[in-house]
């Protein structure tokens, strides 16, 4: 649906038809219409892409920056490690939603600003995780061996450390995408994320809220869509963890 929204609906998500305002679900409009007579199903379908893309971007950004920082910190040795860990802890100390709300208010609303604002604190989680992994792996024999062979530091980092640390980080990333989608939707709901007329799901719930008591389906379906997407990523995350990390069976013990 995110790749080719046109295949899933014949309706234009931005076609305005005032005569068709706030219609209940029917054959022509399976989920009803919004306050401008736009088809809600079409808007949901077209909203898949921004919703999904924004959530994935937050984590992708944090993953890349955090992993690079974590690799460097873990490998660099004691003094750099000590200093940079304080920096990482500093970024971990911020309540994410509150700061994203403040940053987006001051720097200008929009989905892109929210993505950057969330990534600004989120990378530190990956840096901490990556560093912990590196500290374990770098004492293993094959790393010591390649160091003894005189290989360069960046080669050891990329060829030996990274592949052995990446699976734990990827498991976290899959589960985190669901959290990122939730937080972004919440920011949109609070009015600093995606701006109308974008069919982003969180923003749709916000507008639907105004019509909640008389036209309950309007807010119900976009919220349901967010819920299903987040649930899907959570289940995917659990599966990925079972595949990549056989040691973590603790939840099902």
């Amino acid at each position, binding site marked *: 649906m995110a790749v080719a929204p046109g295949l899933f609906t014949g309706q234009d998500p931005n076609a305005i038809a005032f005569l068709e305002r706030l219609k209940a679900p029917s054959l022509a409009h399976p989920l009803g219409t919004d306050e401008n007579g736009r088809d809600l199903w079409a808007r949901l379908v077209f909203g898949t892409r921004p919703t999904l893309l924004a959530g994935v971007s937050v984590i992708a950004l944090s993953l890349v920056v955090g992993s690079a920082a974590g690799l460097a910190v873990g490998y660099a040795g004691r003094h750099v490690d000590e200093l940079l860990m304080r920096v990482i802890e500093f970024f971990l100390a911020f309540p994410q939603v509150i700061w994203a709300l403040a940053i987006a208010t001051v720097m200008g609303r929009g989905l892109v600003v929210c993505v950057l604002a969330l990534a600004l604190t989120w990378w530190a989680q990956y840096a901490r995780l990556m560093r912990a992994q590196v500290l374990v792996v770098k004492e293993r024999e094959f790393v010591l061996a390649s160091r003894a062979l005189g290989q360069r530091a960046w080669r050891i980092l990329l060829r030996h450390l990274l592949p052995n640390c990446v699976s734990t980080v990827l498991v976290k990333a899959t589960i985190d995408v669901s959290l990122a989608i939730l937080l972004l939707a919440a920011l949109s709901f609070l009015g600093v994320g995606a701006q109308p007329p974008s069919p982003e799901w969180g923003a749709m719930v916000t507008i639907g809220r105004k019509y909640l008591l008389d036209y309950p389906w309007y807010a119900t379906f976009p*919220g349901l869509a967010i819920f299903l997407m987040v649930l899907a990523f959570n289940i995917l995350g659990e599966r990925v963890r079972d595949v990549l990390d056989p040691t973590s069976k603790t939840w099902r013990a």
Partner: protein
Amino acid sequence: MARVILRRLPLLALLLAGISLAAFLLTQQLPGDPAFIAAGGGEATPEMIAHARARLGLDRPMSVQYAYYMRGVLQGDFGRSMVNAKPVIEDIRKFWPASVELALAAIAISAVVGVPLGVASAVRARRWLDRLITPGSVFLGSMPIFWLGLMAVLVFYRMLDMLPAGGRLTVGFAPPPAVTGLYVVDALLARDLAVLRDALRHLVLPASILSVVSLAMITRVTRSAMLDILHEDYLRTARAKGLAEPVVVLKHALRNASVPIVTVIGIQLGQLIGGVVITETIFSWPGLGLYAVTAVDNQDYPAIIAFTLITTVVYVVINLVVDLLYPVLNPQVRS
């Protein structure tokens, strides 16, 4: 204990300095030139603007400006609201008890429901209740709480007409005499049962919605902490002594599992802050969160920055207290 606190204090001071610096840098990004506005706006001549700039200290170096800003903040001066021109701190004093009441009620609900649920599912591991817990917590954890809140309003207010849709008291009820600022506690202190009933009716829906996220976490952690302990030798001994099963589970097992449980409750209390903002928005709960969202809508920057700074400090302090409690609860890590 005192030594641990003393060792953490410099780090805490550094952290708070960093956070305030971040807040200060945010104020520097604000659109508009404050000197231009202070000089009277459109009519101002370049000399008037320069004069206002000097008067406000805006011509000084950034570091000096930061020092001035910090001096104000430490004295509780967060500037004046751009909407009602009152000092921001006055509004914050007025609104924070409502948020505290909501957050405490939510964490109480999730602890009172979550801990027994976790214990029960660990004791009856792999039975039907236990099999529901893990998927159930993933299910709940995937709900956007703003949506869940709206659905709750639809069901309990519009369809069943059981509970109010928002606010802290029905119009016409006077708030109880302020002692703590928490209406439920104040109504109890004043022995005013009608107000107490009304306050509780308004509190139950937002607090339940807010408790959902932490409920899932607390249940999971309680369950796994209990599972770790239920097979220990001293529990077999206790059973062998002929103690009743509830005594074994509650007195021997739960007490030893309490470290991770108390820790997760503390952490969740910090995590609630973001949820408080959302829940207050949905239920028109007149606390700091609703104040902040209104400020966002009005572009009331001093209010937003003050809110951000204060909630961050609260968040940091909660997490610090959780860290400090850890050795108190678990003698093994004291060394």
